[in-house]
């Protein structure tokens, strides 16, 4: 990031602090693609909508604390400090939220649908399911065994696998997708 660009952003923010709406729009318009890039680089596993949510969080935060910008100081370190903090904050909130989260499938509950009216809720071919689980990569297999078969908590499973809750969730999601594909092929 060049000093010129830093000065340019600094001047726009200085104008925005005095209530210049046009300068403020220009500043936020020019910052947004850069913020999106930073968020995408830091959170490669996120989908576009989640990245956009984070970008908007950062924009709201910049707006809320714009009085803390001092034109005597460089702009980019100020911006990056807020961005990094918001990313860390969202990661903490995600972990806290997922600790209390219970994942449920979207099951049909209407009476005319035949599926909720079945008395048994088991997969038709247990052997095929066992084989499919055994064929999964190790991380995904561990995730399915611990979370879906033994039903232990995400945190305990993450500790047992020596990984993070987030990584385990991703592994579970992938494992479920793989199993679905494998079992549909066999039918």
């Amino acid at each position, binding site marked *: 990031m060049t000093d010129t660009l830093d000065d340019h952003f600094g001047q726009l923010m200085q104008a*925005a*602090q*005095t*209530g*210049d*709406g*046009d300068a*403020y*729009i220009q500043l*936020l*318009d020019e910052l*947004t*693609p850069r913020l999106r890039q930073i968020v995408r680089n830091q959170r490669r596993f996120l989908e576009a909508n989640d990245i*956009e949510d984070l*970008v*908007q*969080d950062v*924009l*709201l*935060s910049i*707006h*809320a*604390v*714009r*009085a*803390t*910008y*001092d034109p005597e*100081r*460089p702009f980019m*370190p*100020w*911006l*990056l*400090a*807020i961005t990094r*903090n*918001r990313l860390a*904050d969202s990661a903490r909130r995600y972990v806290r939220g997922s600790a209390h989260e219970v994942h449920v499938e979207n099951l049909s509950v209407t009476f005319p649908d035949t599926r909720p009216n079945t008395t048994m809720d088991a997969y038709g071919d247990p052997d095929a399911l066992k084989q499919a689980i055994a064929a999964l990569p190790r991380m995904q297999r561990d995730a399915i065994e611990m979370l879906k078969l033994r039903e232990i908590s995400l945190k305990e499973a993450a500790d047992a696998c020596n990984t993070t809750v987030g990584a385990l969730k991703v592994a579970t999601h992938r494992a479920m997708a793989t199993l679905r594909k494998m079992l549909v092929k066999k039918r």
Partner: protein
Amino acid sequence: MTRDTEQLIRQLANSAHPVRRLAQPYVRAAIWLAISVSYLAVIVVAIPARHDLSSKLSEPLFVIEQTAALATGIAAAIAAFATVIPAHNRKWILLPLLPLAIWLGSLGPGCLQELNHFGWQALPLDHSLWCVPIIVLVGAVPAVAMVVMLRRGAPLTPQLTAALGGLAAAGLGNVGVRIIHPEDVTVMLLFWHIGAVMALSAFAGSMGHHFLNWGSTVRASENTAR
């Protein structure tokens, strides 16, 4: 740019009224100190100062102790205000360490004297707990002023910021107690008064995320814009 983000930028720009730039941490600490000392003066008038205050003020150790406690409060306030400015130099956090060390050190000679006199077994630690609510009472307005001022900044490190703010308020509260209450057993002071200051600071730190968080900061800015 997605439509939502574009819309958000337009909304933010529409609500972008002029803002008063945050002053430097030391200037804000001076404002906070002025509020706090004014309140302390009211307390000292309401609850008369200790009868031996004039003679105590001629004792170098007493003066050093109170000066260091006051300096700890001021340094902690500067450090707390520095932590709410994004990208501000983090070395400011260490500022209270020197006056804090001098404060603890000023109690050292008295502690050693008592240790020689009473021995470990008979050290006088009995103490009425009334000094804790007095520290809280004297520190209450400085603490509230501190919270209001800190909430104007960015909640980057809520726990650390609140702990430093708590140290500032409790440090000043301790000075107030020492001016009001005639009590000079130094081991007891170390144990109860400084213990109370540290406990209040730790408590403030543990509560930091309740009053310093991005959610309330963003909401406050939205309310101001309305």
